[in-house]
Structures are given as structure tokens and as C-alpha cells.
């Protein structure tokens, strides 16, 4: 089938490409319905990645967070119209030790493979999961949930047992979803969110406590911490975490930064801290996210951070959505009518 693929050819410049798709029994064709804009997509769109990276990766179809409906499955395993979440990570090899999202050979949508801004997506059968009972707009946030799940599952395996207080640095979308899921995983722990903007922190009604970064006194201590800040403020957040974390605590890093970040390794050594890098997610993380999102309360909380839904009928609408996203506190979701 000739597929329409919307690719970024240069910053803020999208163009329709026609692609000859090859079908096989391992493929299920999915029509995207709700796609969510991620900060990583926005960095490509605005041209805020390094020039050599843009030169290497563009043209590229953006978006790696999304749900859709099955339009064709010759094997009949999926029904026409069945709603599914699409997994952006596509492994090309199996490894018994290293998880699929960390294999250097894996392809990732909107980075090393075309993203979901397409008329129809030829998904490998093991890269979709049905999302019964989950509203599609909320479903488009499942990829973010899976990233948080990936970090929490790793944290579970690598951190010590004492989890009386867990601190989450960052009041953006990643901080919000990580806090929400930490409450689900550890209902008896006290989850404290530390952020820079009170109007965003106010959304975190499910957290046990919210604090501004400026109001932490020296007595404030956490057993473990999740860094969900990223960007240029990562260094400040990590510095503050190292200062307030108890010895042998675990710092889960989730914030993406374009430039290298300074870390106070002397105190990391002195306190015997564990720093864990977290990126992307695997099939199992998506499965767990779909399971967690069956909870209507979690769905309602997720719905609260959809700042805006934009109807997409043409390329101009996509440009509009990316521009509006810059002014939204949380997520911009595109209702994909393409």
C-alpha cells in the first residue's frame, strides 16, 4: 500500500512522503488516532538538536507516543477497529541479560526509525497491545507511563528495602506520571515532589507533599530520589538530590539533557549512592502500564495533564499543534484524522 508519511525535513518544515509499505503475516496495520507530542519531538521540530544530529536524522516522521485502531490483520488475531497502544521500541535481536530498550541495535520511533505521524502504520505483531477500557486520549500517555514503569521496576530491583520517603524532583509530565505510579507501587511510602513552579505542583494532588526547590531545609531527607528534570536544570536537581538523600540511596535519573551534566562524585562516593540511568521502555513495561491504567482513578489523573487536544486534518494543523504545545504546561495530544 502507498502510505502517507509526514516527515520533518528541516526545523518547522513538514512534508508528505509516499512510502511503499510491505505487508506480511507478522504485520498488523494500525491507523493512528491519538498522538501525543513529547519534548524530544519538540526539540527536533524547533531545531534544538545539534546540527550534525539533525543532518543525520532528518527527514524523519516524529512522534513516539500514540494509540490507534487496527484496520487490517490478515491473520484475524486482531479485530478491525480494535484499539491498541503502539510500542515505539523495535528490537532487532534477543538478549537474555540486556533489556530491549537498552540494546544499541534496537530501533526507536521518532529517533532511529520513522515515528507515528503516518496515515497507517505497519506495526510488527508484538509491538501493539490492546487497550480495552482506556480512553484513547489517555492511552496516548501510556508510553510515558511505560517509561516511568521501566524506571520504577529497575528501582525495585536495585534499591535497598527502606523506602519511607521517596523524593521526586521535577514538576513536569515525567515527574507527574512517575509520582502517580510510585503512589500505586508504594502506597505506604511518603512521596514528596520538589519543583520550581507552584502552579504545576498544584496538579500533584495525589502526592503526600509538594515543595518548592527553594524551600528545602537541611533536615529534609529522602531515602531515594527520582530525577525528572532534564535539560539545563538537571545539574542543579542532581546536586540538590545528592545533598538531601540518605546514604546508600538510589537516584533514578529520567531527565534528558542535551549537554553533559556535572555530578558531585565525591559525595556520591561518600554516601555510597547508586545512580541509575533510565531511558525508554520495553513490551513488559507497556503491559504493566496498560494494567495500571485499568484503574479509573489513574485514568482521571492522567486526563488532568492533557493540556490541549488539537484536531489534525492537514499539515498546517500539525504546525499549529507544535506551536501551541510550547505554551502548554503539560501534554498536547493530537487527534489524528489524517
Amino acid at each position, binding site marked *: 500500500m502507498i502510505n502517507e508519511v509526514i516527515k520533518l525535513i528541516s526545523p518547522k518544515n513538514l512534508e508528505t512522503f509516499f512510502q*511503499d509499505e510491505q505487508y506480511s503475516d507478522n504485520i498488523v496495520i494500525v491507523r493512528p488516532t491519538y498522538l501525543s507530542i513529547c519534548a524530544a519531538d519538540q526539540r527536533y521540530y524547533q531545531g534544538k538538536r545539534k546540527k550534525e544530529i539533525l543532518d543525520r536524522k532528518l527527514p524523519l516522521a516524529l512522534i513516539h507516543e500514540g494509540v490507534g485502531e487496527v484496520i*487490517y490483520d490478515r491473520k484475524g488475531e486482531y479485530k478491525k477497529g480494535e484499539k491498541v497502544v503502539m510500542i515505539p521500541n523495535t528490537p532487532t535481536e534477543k538478549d537474555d541479560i540486556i533489556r530491549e530498550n537498552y540494546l544499541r541495535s534496537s530501533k526507536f520511533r521518532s529517533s532511529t526509525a520513522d515515528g507515528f505521524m503516518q*496515515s497507517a502504520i505497519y506495526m510488527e505483531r508484538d509491538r501493539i497491545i490492546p487497550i480495552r477500557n482506556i480512553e484513547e486520549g489517555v492511552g496516548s500517555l501510556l508510553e510515558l507511563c511505560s517509561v516511568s514503569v521501566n524506571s520504577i521496576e529497575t528501582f525495585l530491583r536495585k534499591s535497598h528495602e527502606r523506602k519511607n520517603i521517596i523524593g521526586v524532583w521535577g514538576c513536569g509530565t515525567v515527574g507527574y506520571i512517575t509520582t502517580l505510579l510510585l503512589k500505586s507501587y508504594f502506597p505506604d511510602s511518603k512521596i514528596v515532589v520538589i519543583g520550581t513552579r507552584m502552579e504545576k505542583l498544584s496538579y500533584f494532588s495525589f502526592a503526600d507533599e509538594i515543595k518548592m526547590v527553594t524551600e528545602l531545609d537541611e533536615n529534609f531527607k529522602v531515602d531515594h530520589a527520582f530525577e525528572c528534570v532534564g535539560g539545563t536544570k538537571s545539574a542543579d536537581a542532581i546536586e540538590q538530590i545528592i545533598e538531601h538523600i540518605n546514604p546508600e540511596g538510589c537516584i533514578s535519573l529520567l531527565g534528558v539533557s542535551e549537554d553533559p551534566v556535572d555530578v558531585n562524585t565525591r559525595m556520591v562516593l561518600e554516601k555510597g549512592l547508586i545512580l541509575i540511568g533510565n531511558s525508554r521502555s520495553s513490551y513488559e513495561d507497556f503491559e504493566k502500564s496498560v494494567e495500571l491504567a485499568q484503574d479509573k482513578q489513574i485514568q482521571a489523573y492522567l486526563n488532568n495533564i492533557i493540556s490541549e487536544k488539537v484536531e489534525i486534518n492537514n499539515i498546517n494543523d500539525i504546525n499549529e499543534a507544535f506551536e501551541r504545545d510550547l505554551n502548554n504546561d503539560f501534554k498536547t495530544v493530537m487527534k489524528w484524522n489524517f
Partner: protein
Amino acid sequence: MNFGGILAGGKGTRMGKTDLPKQFLMLGEKPIIIHTIEQFLVSPAIDEVIVAVPENWRSYTEDIVEKYCKDDKIHIIEGGANRNGSVMNICRYINENYKDDENVVVTHDAVRPFVTQRIIKDNVELCKKYGATDTVVPAVDTIVEAKDGTVISNIPIRNQMYQGQTPQSFKVKEFLQTYESLTEEEKEILTDAAKVYVLNKKNVALVMGENFNMKVTTKYDLKLANLMLNNLKDEEE
């Protein structure tokens, strides 16, 4: 039910020296007609796909469908002597095998492989609402009418002019009845199925097409289509 009706009656006479009818020429890695069939096959708006081909090319079409996109939903039948004949054969086939007064057929040129899912969906929806549809794009050039072929007899207002593409969609039963009501003379002059409705003063709703929903009928078109698919190099080799 909703049917895709692929019109593949062409015998390739406009394509230069090639003997293979144009719908069977390769575009990228598949014959043009396969791209078109696939687009209807995967459309959620379409239940079954009927393909009308010249009798001599029926086995050939069955072979390539088997090779590229085998599916029980695809039915290959014999086309008619002309375009409307093929549309009629498709409608009769549907009427005989799937009795339902509400059946809709979305007829489409096999040589327009760039038809989109949106166009197919809009055709089905508007056909159900208005009874028939025609896919068009606004005319870019001024249309000039010259009845004697020598001097201009009329220049219609451009923003009221559209260029017809396909799909064209109809309610199967109504199309059969309407077509049968025409005189033999009227049937003779009809080159366009939507005109059957217009002659009978029935509504035909416009569906917005796409400029790229082009008809691949010349070598130049094929080159352009391959270029659109980034396959120009392959095509030249």
C-alpha cells in the same frame, strides 16, 4: 455493506510500446493495481473489494493478487466493454451476491494508486448521506469551452469548476435502476458514471480529492509516480 469497485478495464493502448495494460506496470515493488487494491483492502470503511478486469487478464490478475495481497475479501470479475460497463458488472455482481438495498460501491480507477484512506472514508460517508459522490479537486487553470473546437463558446467561472477524479460512489441498487432507465442514446454518450445521476437530476455530493491522486496513464505519469515514491532510479534501471 460497502464495496470497493476497482475499474481495471484499460488495455494499455495509451502507454506507448508496452503491451502490458498500464494497471499492471510496476510502481516501486508492486504493480500499480496492487497498490490500489491494498488501499481499499485495509480501509475500515470497505467490507469487500471487487476488481473488474478485461477477460484476457483475469487469470493474470488472480496470479498477482495471490502473490502480493491474497485475501478472501478480493473478488476478481470480468469488466465491461467500456467504463460504465465495468461499473455495471460490479454492481450486478454485488446485487447478485450480497442482497441489500443499502449496499454502497466506491468505484475507483485501478491506475490511481495514490488514493488515500480519507478519500475512501469520505466517499462512503457522503454516499450514504446523498446517494452518490464524485471525487474532485478545484480547477487550477481556467476552463475554456469550445463547442466547435475552433473558437471559445464559453468561459465558465473558475471557482465553480472542479476537475473530476475517482472514486465515484453510488448506492448499488439505485445506480442499477437509474442506469437502466437511460435511453440507449444516453448510455452511448456517457463516459462518466456520475453523469448518469446528473442526467436524472439526482444529487451527487463532492468529495475533496488530492492533487496527488493522479491517474497513471502515460510514461511521464509513471515516472512522476515513481519519483513520488522515491523510486525514480529503480524505474530508470
